[in-house]
């Protein structure tokens, strides 16, 4: 697939669908964003949105295509994308689209890659989704701590000025860029909506859900940036093409961030169901013996090294290991690291990242972190520590307004299972010599040039 720049034409050029991989990352340039002209030359212009027309002239055929494709969200929750679009399209009031490119997960770089290098692909997906649900506005949300993404998106939006929308959807939506504060929960769907409503970037209680009443009390479609990039390609090449990769239960490709002791850590595009071994091989192989892999991010699960050779990266396969792909993070832990100490540090980081609104989250995550720190820091006996961790985990999960405490508990419980012998040793003998090593998992204290406030309200 050549990437020769073509001039913008009003009629979308038909292009052949990419066979195999890469799909999203096809012809990505290593050092700058693909321009609108280059993007159009590669993928063709915006495809027409076909009949039948839904309520209010909404071209909902795309929604049916997405349903056939089986595309699920790539923000972590994995919710079927077509359902979200359908829910918003069915609403009475005029909708709007929010592109969630905030990516507050520390180890994840995929959305940053898309927004820096392939912003037009993301905008395509957003504009097509807007056409399908009858939205007149697209708000792209990105972290204030990612200046390259901010600049790249700003330029991409400027390039689209005056460009026509997809045929069959009326006038194109207004595009605007908004920056979010640099907190873990500020990337949560309802936190983004809250911030866009001039409130603080903290999660809100639901109901109402954003698709019912979101930004400006209007039905709001909130989608991850990568999800919309997939939408852009499915709209051009169809559900059948999308399903050519990956198993039937979890079709398509995905971006994953490979982190840890490998030769070439970074963002890779895989077909769902690819083996973890093949991903590590693509990443140049390990540079040190492995202890375990953390799949999904800081709300994800650990899988011990002995089982990694049998792991395939699709939700249905990972479920057997008690894990899911989540935000697409594969963080490898070397044998040199102490899993108890690493878990303790992540737990403390997650506790510090609490929005501070719900008692069980604030107190519970704090107690979990303290107990873990006693295991990895104390020199005495931590006899009651393990039962206390189990008990706290049971009390905290499900009792916050958002999924943050659930994610932290999931990580901690999975660590207790995966590293049971390490935890038992620490409970008996206190910290080990590897506890004091520097953290292998990224724990950003301060992202550069970040806004440190939550926004108005507090």
């Amino acid at each position, binding site marked *: 697939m050549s990437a020769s720049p073509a001039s913008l034409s009003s009629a979308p050029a038909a292009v052949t669908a990419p066979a195999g991989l890469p799909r999203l990352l096809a012809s990505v340039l290593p050092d700058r964003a693909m321009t609108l002209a280059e993007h159009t030359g590669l993928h063709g212009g915006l495809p027409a949105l076909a009949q039948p027309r839904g309520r209010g002239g909404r071209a909902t055929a795309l929604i049916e295509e997405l349903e056939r494709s089986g595309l699920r969200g790539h923000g972590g*929750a994995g*919710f079927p994308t077509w359902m979200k679009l359908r829910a918003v399209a069915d609403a009475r009031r005029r909708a709007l689209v929010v592109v969630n490119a905030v990516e507050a997960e520390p180890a994840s770089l995929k959305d940053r890659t898309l927004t820096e290098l392939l912003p037009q692909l993301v905008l395509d997906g957003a504009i097509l989704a807007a056409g399908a649900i009858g939205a007149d506005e697209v708000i792209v949300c990105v972290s204030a701590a990612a200046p390259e993404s901010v600049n790249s998106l700003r330029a991409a939006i400027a390039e689209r000025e005056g460009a026509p929308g997809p045929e069959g959807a009326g006038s194109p939506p207004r595009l605007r860029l908004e920056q979010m504060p640099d907190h873990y929960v500020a990337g949560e*769907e309802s936190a983004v909506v809250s911030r866009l409503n001039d409130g603080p970037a903290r999660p*809100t*209680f*639901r109901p109402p*859900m954003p698709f019912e009443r979101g930004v400006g009390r209007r039905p709001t479609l909130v989608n991850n940036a990568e999800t919309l990039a997939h939408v852009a390609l499915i709209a051009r090449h169809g559900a059948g093409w999308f399903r050519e990769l990956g198993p039937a239960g979890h079709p398509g490709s995905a971006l994953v961030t490979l982190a840890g002791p490998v030769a070439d850590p970074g963002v890779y595009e895989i077909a769902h169901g690819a083996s973890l071994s093949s991903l590590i091989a693509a990443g140049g192989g390990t540079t040190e013996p492995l202890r375990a892999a953390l799949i999904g991010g800081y709300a994800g699960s650990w899988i011990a090294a002995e089982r990694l050779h049998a792991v395939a990266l699709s939700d249905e396969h990972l479920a057997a290991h008690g894990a899911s792909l989540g935000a697409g993070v594969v963080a490898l832990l070397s044998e040199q690291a102490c899993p108890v100490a690493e878990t303790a540090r992540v737990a403390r980081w997650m506790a510090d990242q609490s929005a501070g*609104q*719900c*008692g*069980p*989250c604030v*107190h*519970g995550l704090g107690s979990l972190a303290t107990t873990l720190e006693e295991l990895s820091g104390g020199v005495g006996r931590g006899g009651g520590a393990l039962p206390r961790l189990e008990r706290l985990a049971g*009390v905290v999960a*499900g*009792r*916050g*307004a958002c*999924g943050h405490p659930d994610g932290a508990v999931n990580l901690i419980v999975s660590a207790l299972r995966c590293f049971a012998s390490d935890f038992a040793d620490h409970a008996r003998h206190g910290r080990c010599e590897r506890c004091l090593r520097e953290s292998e998992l990224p724990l950003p204290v301060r992202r550069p040039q970040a806004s440190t406030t939550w926004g108005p309200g507090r």
Partner: protein
Amino acid sequence: MSRRLRVNPIACEAHGMCAELLPERITLDEWGYPILSEQPLEGAELQNALRAVQACPTFALILERDAGRRRD
């Protein structure tokens, strides 16, 4: 029609009046926040549940139709 108790954890400030008024369904965790039992309420319990909902100083306790919401 069966109903379910639900607490808005953001509004909740751990006053604990709900647990005093409906101890068979609401217990308090070690920090004073309510743990609700999952089962739907029936008949006589509904009266006491309503009292508990009215007593909550911050309106955090809610009575919902039992529609089995999932968290998204």
